[in-house]
């Protein structure tokens, strides 16, 4: 469940490429590639209590994703991502897990774009996205499960100001609804109650991200700050294991860099590096995440930049 949160947190970084930013991929253009992230923590918050756990040591989550963003029109993009996840604990007896996690698919619509002051352009976006587990991975072996087996649907508005000189500010928030999860065990205890059912209601999640930086001619650099607030769920109790419906909150800072690689004959290849750090949280690991990506732009007939 940590993982899930991490993945939610991680996904913020991954998606920062396009789901929550002010960038649109033009019509008939495909922006695709591989992203690899390495997330680890040895401190975590048990409720609000910051602690270490000798039976876990450092928990590592590695995620290798195929990512694609396709411009259906200049105003409408389709984005998808398929992650394969490995988990591991450096100490203790618990086995790591691995497998394909949840496919994410999103439609991003740029419904407003107009000059704002003499300095730049104001854009507004609406994103609807959903995710579905790709495999029947085990959801209740937290914190080493690779996900939480919940289908999700999110709505996300974004407002972006891009100046003519390249600097920009961006604000985006999302609200996520999550489907009920069926556990393998017939009952569970969470949030002060024993539930005599295997069905877990997953609380909704609110998230926002604010970012500012530079973007021009494929070169990008920015700082971000994001927060997540889960709209329900219980805390991890003292010395208890995490549970998938825990109230997972966090504040995270991030740095995102992208640079077109100057490789002759591969003009369309860009490298990306993302750093994320959970500065404060509740029922989540105090993780550091490093993500690298190689992304290639393919322009099909009809692409305006072909």
């Amino acid at each position, binding site marked *: 469940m940590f993982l899930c949160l991490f993945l939610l947190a991680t996904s913020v970084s991954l998606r920062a490429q396009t789901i929550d930013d002010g960038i649109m991929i033009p019509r008939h253009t495909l922006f695709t590639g591989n992203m690899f992230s390495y997330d680890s923590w040895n401190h975590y918050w048990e409720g609000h209590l910051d602690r270490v756990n*000798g039976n876990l040591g450092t928990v590592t989550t590695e995620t290798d994703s195929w990512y694609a963003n396709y411009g259906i029109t200049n105003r409408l993009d389709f984005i998808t991502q398929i992650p394969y996840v490995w988990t591991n604990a450096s100490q*203790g*007896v618990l*086995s790591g897990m691995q497998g394909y996690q949840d496919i994410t698919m999103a439609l991003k619509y740029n419904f407003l774009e107009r000059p704002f002051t003499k300095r730049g352009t104001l854009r507004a976006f609406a994103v609807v996205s959903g995710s579905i587990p790709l495999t029947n991975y085990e959801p209740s072996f937290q914190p080493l499960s690779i996900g939480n087996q919940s289908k999700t649907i999110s709505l996300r508005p974004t407002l972006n100001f891009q100046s003519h000189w390249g600097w920009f500010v961006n604000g985006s928030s999302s609200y996520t609804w999550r489907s009920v999860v069926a556990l393998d*065990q017939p009952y569970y205890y*969470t949030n002060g109650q024993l539930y005599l059912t295997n069905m877990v209601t997953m609380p909704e999640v609110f998230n926002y991200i604010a970012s500012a930086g530079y973007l021009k001619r494929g070169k990008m650099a920015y700082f971000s700050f994001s927060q997540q607030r889960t709209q329900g769920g219980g805390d991890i109790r003292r010395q208890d*294991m995490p549970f998938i419906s825990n109230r997972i909150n966090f504040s995270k800072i991030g740095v995102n860099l992208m640079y077109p690689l100057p490789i002759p004959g591969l003009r369309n290849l860009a490298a990306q590096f993302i750093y994320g750090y959970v500065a404060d949280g509740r029922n989540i690991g105090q993780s550091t995440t490093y993500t690298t990506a190689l992304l290639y732009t393919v322009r099909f007939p009809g692409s305006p930049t072909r």
Partner: protein
Amino acid sequence: MTMFGKRSYRFVFAAIACATAAPCMVTAANNDPGAGSWQMIVLSGPTQIPVPAPASVTDPGYQAELASIQTAQAHLTTAQNNAISNWSGGGTVRWNQILLELVASADLPPEPNADGTYTFPSAANPFAFPQFPFANPPYAARSYSYVAAAQYEALKVAWYYKYLYNRPAPSSVDSSIQALIPTNGLPAYPSEDAVESGVAAALLAILFPTQVNLINQTAAEQQEAALLSGKAAPSDIAAGFALGQAVAAIFAARAGTDGLKAATGTAAQWAALAAGAIANGQIPWISRETPPRPPMLPFFGQVKTWMMTPADIVNERPGPPPSTSSAQMAQETALVKYTLENLTRAQLAIATKWADGASSPTPPGHWNFIAEPYIANAHFSEVRAARAFALLDMALHDAAVACWDTKYFYFTPRPEQMDPSIKTVIGLPNFPSYDSGHSTFSGAATAVLSYLFPNGATYFNAEAQEAAISRLYGGIHYQIDNDTGLAHGTRVGGYTLRFAQQDGADQPTVSAAGGGQALDGASFHSPVAPGSIAAVFQSGLAATTNVAAAVPLPTALNGVSLSFGSIPAPLFAAAPNQANIQIPWELQGLSSAVLTATGADGSNTTFSVPLSAFAPAIFSVNQQGTGQGLVTIANTGTLAALPGSIGGATTRAAAKGDFITVYCLGLGAVNNQPPTGAPAPDGTSTTISPVSVLLNGASVPAAYAGLAPGSVGVYQVNVQIPDNAPTGNAVALALSAGGATSNAVTIAIQ
């Protein structure tokens, strides 16, 4: 004279009696009136706890109690209706669910201190971290068993007094009080709900002291629900609560000295366990946690059991596991590793299903969870439901003791200690491996549950097998731990099973306490009178329910037959656990007779039936001999009851001067006696002894008393309501014949 007109009689039995009274099958739950004589476990007998006689139902104090219930029922809040709903499925089932939650809430190991040590929870300071208790599997098994056994013991005492005093429920005494939870005619004093809550409040406050507020609220809610639902008056509840607390005190004293306090041991004792294993040439178990955690309750094997002696524990202890240096142990370890490396998703799901680690009701709770729907759906009386939980949980506790004895006797390392490259997919328990706790619990639970619910035996056994192998799939047990544990648990469960087989609950023996199994069909009290109808309760009698199609009645129904020596008893109906018979007229003059019941499977059971020439008993609408009587306005099918008070029946209050007809049993010898099994032909089968009708205790001579024409074994008494008769919605009516007085039912007189 048409007072006993056939038409009106038939109408009554078609409209009401056929669904409610003896000539058709009595399908209501058996109230187990003999439970007061079932074998005790800790108490010496029901009279060890004195319960004083209640005030009469006509006592002004009791009448005031009824008025208070009536007032409360008129203004039920949502919370009160919820409380009634919460407890309508039976108190033992609900307390068991609450106990599962209490265990899960307390099933958390202490966290390590900064210096690598662990602080043990303290009963003297339960709210301090780590909170008391850590409800680990042995602690949980013991807790479940104390609550279940004490509730069962206290309910047996309650049943003894219920049928000694026979005070009806308020809704039976006063028809203006609604029965919001059906009482099935169970006597109300002392209240079973109050008994259960009295036991639970006292014991749970000791077992789970941090939850005392929740426990007390729950206990209060159960008593409130009993009162508001018309089941129990305040005096029924007060007597029940006192009884429950008194029994709980006896169990609390036992718990204080049962050895749990010494089960944690000391560092020196833990070291001695390891030294003992080394002296035997074995690798000793060590904690695999970081920092290493002291072993879980290493001396729980010396805690007092319910059904076993300390010698039994030693005798049932399995032989040693393979030596830690043996090739067999290497193979066992390799199998664990191979299983994990080739684990299927289905196997992982099984391991997860049975993980029952931190924050769970623990494996004993898992078996309570499995048993609960069987108990809830069996339509047991409360005392029999309590018996089921008690038998299960006593067996689980004894399994915990037996398994912990074995674990610390051999002190065997877990597979991961033998090969640290093994990584588990569920938490690794912090105690020795051999033999498996899950497997031992499951073997014991299956032995008991398969006896109680034979139809579920295949399922219970499959669950037990799955629970056992789940520990191999999880990577935390050798196969031999699981195989040995299942067999160990089955042997341990056998001790409780043998107790259950002879405790009086499943046997048709007739006890001195009046808990006879051959009961008259009208009010379910023994003895019974020749010529009348009796319900015989006997489990496993038939596979299905069969009802006689015609008169004269048959002497066998689908293989089921009952006979007194060479005299067959005519059968009205035969069901899986009950047969309704006519006591043959030929037995007149005897004080008892031996009844042989032959089941559909050919099995024979023999028991003694007490007989009496007169055993008057009046049919009632609730089929249990209390509340509104099966009394009609003569020559009509109209019940002499408050208008609209009985669904599906025409009712009106009897007026002064009306003739009424009382349907009943046990009025003794008759003129023009029909053959056994044959119906009375007409109104000439009148009683030889005079019969009088008691209205609120005042005697009125019967105008007619004799067999009801056209029926087998049923009498009817016709009487004219005198001008000086008491009036009301629930005037008490009883019969007196041959010096014996019947049960009291009620009728409405205006």
